């Protein structure tokens, strides 16, 4: 667990640990702190936590999604060794587009979803589902091979870890 947190933070993403019962409150404060007032937040259908003023995705177009500042989802698996979260875009995670177009992604991970390494994750995953493996915010090394965060995907990744 500590390794997972350390590795996620290495990518300059933020991790907040909290008790499962506090999840909704923590999500609210993460969004409140990270976004200007009045920002729109999209959530997938079946998200297990209440997001105040969250708009449930009902097949929003890419252009419509571009008006949202943030998205809140759950995850399927998280990998400690590499600091990776894996989405398989089912219940609580939504279509791939909703975690892509908004600039901030708040991803809620349960402690029991964290596995040690990549082979462990593969053993739990269903290849037929589309997958998005996320290791930190969008980044590039294309300018002089130095890493810069923030290109096309969400520039802010905030992981809420339910312990």
């Amino acid at each position, binding site marked *: 667990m500590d390794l997972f947190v350390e*590795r996620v933070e*290495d*990518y300059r993403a933020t991790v907040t640990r909290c008790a499962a019962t506090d999840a909704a409150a923590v999500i609210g404060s993460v969004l409140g702190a990270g976004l200007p007032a009045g920002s729109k937040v999209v959530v997938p259908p079946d998200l297990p936590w209440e997001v105040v003023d969250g708009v449930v995705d009902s*097949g929003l177009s*890419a*252009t419509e999604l*571009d008006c949202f500042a943030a998205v809140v989802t759950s995850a399927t698996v998280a*990998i400690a*060794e*590499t*600091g*990776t979260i894996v989405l398989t*875009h089912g219940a609580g995670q939504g*279509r*791939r*587009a909703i975690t*892509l*177009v908004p600039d901030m992604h708040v991803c809620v991970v349960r402690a029991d979803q964290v*596995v*040690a*390494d*990549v*082979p*462990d*994750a*593969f*053993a*739990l*995953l269903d*290849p*037929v*589902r*589309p*997958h*998005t*493996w*996320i*290791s*930190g*915010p*969008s*980044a*590039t*090394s*294309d*300018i*002089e*091979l*130095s*890493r*810069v*965060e*923030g*290109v*096309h*995907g*969400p520039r802010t990744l905030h992981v809420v870890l339910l312990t």
Partner: protein
Amino acid sequence: MTTTFVGMPPFPSAARTALADTQLRTNLAHATGTIRAKRTAVVAEIDDWEELRLAGAAIKDNALMHLGSHLVRLETALAERGATVHWARDAAEACAVVSTVARSHGVDEVVKVKSMATAEIGLNEALAAQGIAAWETDLAELIVQLGDDLPSHILVPAIHRNRAEIRDIFASAMGEVGRAAPDDLTDDPSRLAEAARLHLREKFLRARVAVSGANFAVAETGTLVVVESEGNGRMCLTLPQVLVSVVGIEKVVPTWSDLDVFLQLLPRSSTGERMNPYTSTWTGVTPGDGPQEVHVVLLDNGRTRALADTVGRQALRCIRCSACLNVCPVYERTGGHAYGSVYPGPIGAILNPLLTGVGVDEQTDSLPYASTLCGACFDACPVRIDIPSVLVDLRAQVIDAHRSAPGHRHVPNAEALAMRAVSWVLSSGARLGLAERGTGLLGRASTLLGQRTSPGVAVRWPGCLALGRRGRMRATCPLRRPSRSGAGGGAPPAAAPRQVGRERSFGHPGSHRGSAVIGRPVAGACPTVVPVLA
């Protein structure tokens, strides 16, 4: 066949020009130095890195050994999941498929994920000829495209450009093809990334057709994988209604769980990260999520020719990580353009001649000499491609080709040619460890030459096929990396150990070169890789 840039001079003269460009050399030395240090650090974190390399090589070798059946399996799995599979023997056929799909949707533009295969086949030019603009969306590809330039590195095609040059390109060229760069653009990399984000977002949001490659294609499930950093890949793979992926046939891996090895090897070797920011996998069409029309173009374009080369076929294991470029003393000094191909560096020096054949053009024939044979590329390669041995073998093939060509009486000694070609690249041979590796390779060269000319000598499969199926290794062999936590069970042992370590008969036993062709699918019939005699 368009693996090399039309009209490029052979490596020695192109390299001489590049060496005179001090800005280029400074940019390259800085960039490759940075990446080497990062790679070394993250590779050192993995205790069983060597075992992972062996596993990666074994999976790929086995995939290549049964390529025909894996491809048919892949096609079936894709079709079952709603994808349309196309087979392309060469660049022209692949380009025709993509442009037909694009035209059938009436579009005049497509967005593209960085893909070596589409660069290899010259897709952008082919689409432009049909009035379709192909927008590169990877930051480095965008820099190359806007700068009207050529790529010079597999991973970072604009590695030869520094931040100030990139700023100037963005400031002058973005406005001509879409949203202009901000007036106050500086050369701060985060400002440059921001400019790319703004410029490309309007293209992502409106695009109806996307084109990608794939890093891996899983035969058993029909799953394609794209490994990336910026999120431009996700944009292309997710937002448009139509997705066409051009996939070299060597990208196939047999099973889903094989991917775990490559998703550990690739990011660490490539960008020197524990994991790249984004990896996307998709299996045909997912109703209600992402593209609803999915095409996969399986591309040969010389790969079966390479497969028929008993020494060179190991190059098809390549996962395009670019580690071999970053450690290569010749690449670091000459840059990628001197190789005259989308595949530069050590891998380019073997892959281009393998794909196109030797004795065809002078430029390609010069590539096997673009090396000191120092062996750094082999040490860095995550799938253990023995590039120096392949180079030596290709040099022999080049000499054979020239010897048999009409009017060619003077046959230079292979090693003499090699050393002449690189001597001026290097101010000191000792600096590059030439002495220690060169001699050994001369010995190996003669062995290979001996094998090539002695009928009946069995040429072993290169690499580590003798390890057997990885599924078996997972269960019984310490070489297969076990899960460190003990969770996540392994595949069952294979029924019987496979007889490996012998030449696949793509020709007569002992004949060095056969060839293999992909049979054309006729009226729904399955294509097969058919060995034919040379």
